[in-house]
């Protein structure tokens, strides 16, 4: 199952490459200049290094390297949904939002994950760990902090 997922990621990246133009086109309408200026294209690849194109992401990259998952999950494995549409929609939304924030410099520090993206991430945990959490999670809504995984496993993605 793990292996399967990793293959899925790679394949998604390939398809992603094909769709890159399409997505960029979509975004050009909303925030083209900002997007390009701020290296928003980084969002279209699966390479963690490319997230760190923005220096504000450097700390998260470093912390990911120390986290328990650096060998098994890249940024997108946790920060984008594991289905095709959700993945690219999320990438576009985040790409636009973060590029704008980066350009204007207006964002809360330390950077905090948005509720929506936290929910995305929570679902990715459950996606990969479905078997092990079967018993404990069947009543959980999986949204917000209520029965969230990172309430206990905070350092999984990014070790302090």
């Amino acid at each position, binding site marked *: 199952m793990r292996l399967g997922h990793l293959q899925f990621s790679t394949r998604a990246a390939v398809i992603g490459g094909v769709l890159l133009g399409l997505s960029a086109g979509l975004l050009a309408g909303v925030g083209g200049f900002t997007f390009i200026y701020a290296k928003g294209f980084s969002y279209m690849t699966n390479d963690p290094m490319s997230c760190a194109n923005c220096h504000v992401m450097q700390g998260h990259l470093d912390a990911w390297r120390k986290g328990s998952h650096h060998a098994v999950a890249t940024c997108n494995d946790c920060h984008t*949904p594991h*289905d095709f549409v*959700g993945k690219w*929609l*999320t990438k576009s*939304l985040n790409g636009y939002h973060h590029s704008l924030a980066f350009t204007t410099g207006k964002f809360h520090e330390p950077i905090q994950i948005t509720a*929506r993206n936290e*929910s*995305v991430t929570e*679902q990715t945990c*459950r996606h990969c760990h479905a*078997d*092990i*959490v*079967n*018993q*404990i*999670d*069947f*009543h*959980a*809504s*999986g*949204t*917000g*902090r*209520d*029965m969230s995984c990172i*309430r*206990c*496993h*905070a*350092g999984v993605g990014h070790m302090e």
Partner: protein
Amino acid sequence: TALLVNIFEHKQEARNPFFRVVEITSEDVDPAKWGKNFPLQYDQYKKTVDQVRTRFGGSEAMPRTPTDADPRGIVSQSRLEEDPRLKIMWAGYAFSKDFREERGHAYMLDDQTFTERQKIAKQPGACIQCHGSVYNVYLEQGGGDLQKGFQKVNSMPYAEARKLVEHPIACLDCHDPETMALRVTRPGFINGMKVLKESQGISNYDVNTQATHQEMRSFVCGQCHVEYYFKGPDKQLTYPWHKGLKVENILAYYEEVGFTDWTHAETSAPVLKAQHPEFETWNQGIHARSGVSCADCHMPYMRVGAQKISDHHVRSPLLNINNACQTCHKFPEEEMLARAVSIQEKTFNMRDKAMNALVDLINDIKTARVEGVNDDQLSGALVFQKRAQFFLDFVEAENSMGFHAPQESVRILGESINFSRQGSRVLRGADVTTSPLTLSNIVPTPAASKWVVAGGATEKVDTP
């Protein structure tokens, strides 16, 4: 984006986690039957018979010779022998005759049935809410009406109520047999939460439909691990939360309704006894404020093969630090233990001082009665005794030795010392008006967010 979130939620529901080997109905009280479907949880549940001591918790297995009246071959250590000052504190009350360290859930029914306290005073059926699997009993007795059955059983003599109950706490006391969802089955808690929420401006609160999932992971324990009293002549079990959960709120409530537990044998002061206010105390601590539930520490997840389950061996987390603390705290096991014990030792030390201060006051009152004292001074001193004792007992009877709320526990003990010593000072001639009898108005600082669980209000605090 709402759309996306929805899609995720749907995927989420498509889970079917367990195989039903047998059909469980609402009639099934026996945990062994539930255990057929959930053998992992059942195996752990059975382990609550284990007795292991920690520095201030757990329990020690003390062999005794079974008698007809009390067939228990093993009990836990006597707290009265560990600290004989307790006998002075509780003089004239059944607790001064038999009070033991509490132990695992498996023993709850027997320990209640056979405690010496049963022989000293006639106990009511109300006792049984927290010591046996009574949910179905209440429904039967009430003809389907939970509250009615509860009221009926409360006012029975204990022996009569006892006959209706077969098991200690069972699966159905915390779980809905159909969905396995957590549920609150104890009318005492349902009513207690209602009056508490009313004091916060929320009316008709219903814990079973309005609590969040994470809250339920504490509320199922708050059903029993709370301060309580028996209201009125028909002994209705009541949680004194009408003004809030802090010790000041509870004392103020008791003073308002004029309730006291017994008359102190050495001083004739009308006094109060506090019992296991774990839920109230936890609520004042930083863990509750951070959304950490009782189950997180006392029933942490454990891995069994490819699954993880909630550890139904409910016990001291200090016997299980790896699972209970270390997922959240990345410090070595022995360091986590040392942190907990350090908090407990500070509390224990203040408890010792508060106990001495109370014993001094009791002796001073006895002497004053012999040597003569004016009424004003005496009645002032008796009020001080009641308060000092209730505050001390609130920490003494709480079972985490301060861990659930370290600063709050020591604060309460400091107040207790102040009450005891002021009582002595008044008796010895100080003007009562210099030691006003008003309680501190300690308002809990409201949590500024959704993290807070039961006790918090909702307003924001001022920015500095």
